């Protein structure tokens, strides 16, 4: 899409010189991930794959949701973007390519986590911590910028919040303070890893609206990591579903109305909903395979009712299916059913 794509770690791009030609336009690709593989060294020295062959693009002003159950590799994928992989894990293959200046630490790409404690230091006032995250240019007028940021994330009394210590704020407020801190660096990409999982539903709804609003106003490219398909349907533009380290299906959010991959189908059927009858739910039998014990072939085949011989032997190819949709399934892949 965009011609100005550099490889990861391209030095030389000065923080403030990001996007020399101005801000990216809505819909423009700011980061593309191609065939990302992440793993760690297991016992006996062999590589244990955590994420295998995952590809996606992040676009300005759009939100991509990375969805999956625990252990599917979604958080590791997100961590790989900013070079935040846990100790021992490393990128084994693939390419993370960004528009210039995007991937510099603390600038261009910002994170918001489930637990505000990961970002907020309990011994400093919130305001000071946000100011610290500002680029030098903004620090000269830090007071105005601080008030602006806190208002942006929905605080009516920015001064009181700025003076507070993290423990004096509620969970939802801490989450918003963390968001303000992330925005302080004027990022182009916001990675939100389960930002609302620990929050009450009414607070969650407010934070999601705020996130969608910021994404639009600030033209942010947002990568939302979540296990909650309801949340995805509320705010995301695009969805990528992962299972056991692999991408299984991708498409515009409307694909959740007509998923093709049997796992995604099963996941949606398993979801308790208000609108359904009070009869038994449909779970997916079995469980997500543990790291290092992933089956050969399609990772989902041991739990899949449609699995055939080839599903057990070969990893399904990632195939485009039209309308921005793609999936990896021998049975349902390749355009139609």
């Amino acid at each position: 899409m965009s011609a100005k794509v550099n490889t990861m770690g391209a030095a030389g791009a000065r923080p403030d010189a990001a996007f020399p030609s101005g801000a990216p336009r809505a819909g423009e690709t700011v980061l593309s991930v191609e065939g990302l593989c992440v793993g760690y060294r297991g016992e006996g020295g062999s590589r244990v794959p955590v994420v295998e062959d995952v590809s996606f693009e992040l676009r300005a002003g759009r939100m991509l949701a990375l969805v999956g159950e625990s252990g599917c590799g979604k958080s590791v994928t997100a961590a790989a973007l900013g070079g935040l992989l846990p100790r021992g894990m490393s990128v084994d293959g693939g390419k993370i390519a960004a528009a210039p200046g995007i991937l510099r630490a603390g600038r261009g790409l910002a994170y918001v986590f489930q637990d505000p404690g990961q970002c907020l230091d309990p011994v400093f006032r919130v305001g000071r911590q946000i100011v610290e995250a500002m680029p030098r240019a903004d620090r000269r007028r830090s007071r105005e910028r601080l008030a602006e940021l806190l208002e942006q994330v929905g605080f009516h009394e920015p001064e009181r919040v700025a003076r507070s210590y993290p423990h004096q704020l509620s969970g939802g407020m801490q989450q918003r303070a963390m968001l303000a801190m992330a925005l302080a660096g004027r990022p182009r990409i916001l990675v939100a890893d389960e930002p609302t999982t620990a929050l009450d539903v009414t607070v969650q709804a407010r934070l999601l609206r705020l996130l969608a609003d910021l994404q639009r106003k600030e033209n942010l490219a947002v990568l939302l990591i979540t296990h909650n398909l309801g949340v995805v349907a509320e705010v995301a533009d695009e969805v990528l579903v992962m299972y056991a380290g692999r991408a299984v299906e991708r498409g515009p959010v409307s694909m959740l109305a007509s998923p093709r991959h049997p796992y995604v189908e099963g996941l949606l059927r398993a979801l308790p909903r208000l609108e359904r009858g009070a009869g038994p739910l449909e779970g997916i039998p079995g469980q997500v395979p543990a790291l290092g014990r992933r089956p050969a072939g399609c990772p989902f085949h041991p739990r899949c009712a449609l699995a055939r011989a080839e599903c057990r032997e070969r990893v399904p190819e990632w195939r485009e299916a039209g309308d921005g949709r793609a999936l990896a399934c021998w049975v349902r892949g390749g355009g139609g059913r």
Partner: protein
Amino acid sequence: MSGADIVMRVEDVLVTYRRVGRTTEAVKGVSFELREGRCLGIVGESGSGKSSLARALLGLEPEAASGRVWFRGEDVLSMDRRARAAFRRSAQMVFQDPLGSLNPRMRVGDAIGEVLRVHGRAKGRREAAERAAEWLGTVGLGAEYAPRYPHELSGGQRQRVNLARSLCAGATFLIADEPVSALDVSVQALILNLMKRLQRERGITWILIGHDLAVMRAMADDLLVMRAGECVERGPAERVLFEPRHPYTRELLSAVPDVAGALRRRGGGGARQSGREQNT
């Protein structure tokens, strides 16, 4: 006490925590009746007092709780030792974190066997092991899981072990505090189905504490909505979910992220922001 099939009757229960110079009213007068074999869902957000209420109902807040809690005609809050021991057998709690409530160094078969022996349901190790294996089968795991340690099981499997442990002493009444919140969606459905099956086949009476109204839809026969220590609405689950009377219940319902509803509202999805240019 009218109605022999009433398992629990709660009248004006208050839970007040007192610390030096400060009192916190966690539960401010909640009343309800729970009939045999039904599931009462108690929903509320964090800090609404639902877990404090649950603990009070089991007599676990002797200092802080006041009011009346009758369990099959006996007052839980003023039971003598003997009555209390019997109550502990028939009323049990299931927690959210199944790992935290299992001894990490005990094989799950032994963990169930221990409960059986303590409550006199099995004599000797051999019988305990046999009955534990049966219980593992009842909760859908099978005897082959008996020699495993908790860390070798998935979250859903651990929750099954916990259910077996709660039930094997002869419990007929369970209070489950967010039992599926920590589980993946595909597994959550299986555990909820198991709970429903136990309710049906073994006549278990449940109180399900939670925040997820969609989960309540799948499990609860009756619902009690709590906010800031008060019950704001109570009634049959269908009625509360589909004809909510209290504004707070309506707010909770509208905040539940719902796939079908959201897609409908957004009309084909993704179109909300497409094309429009938003510059900074």
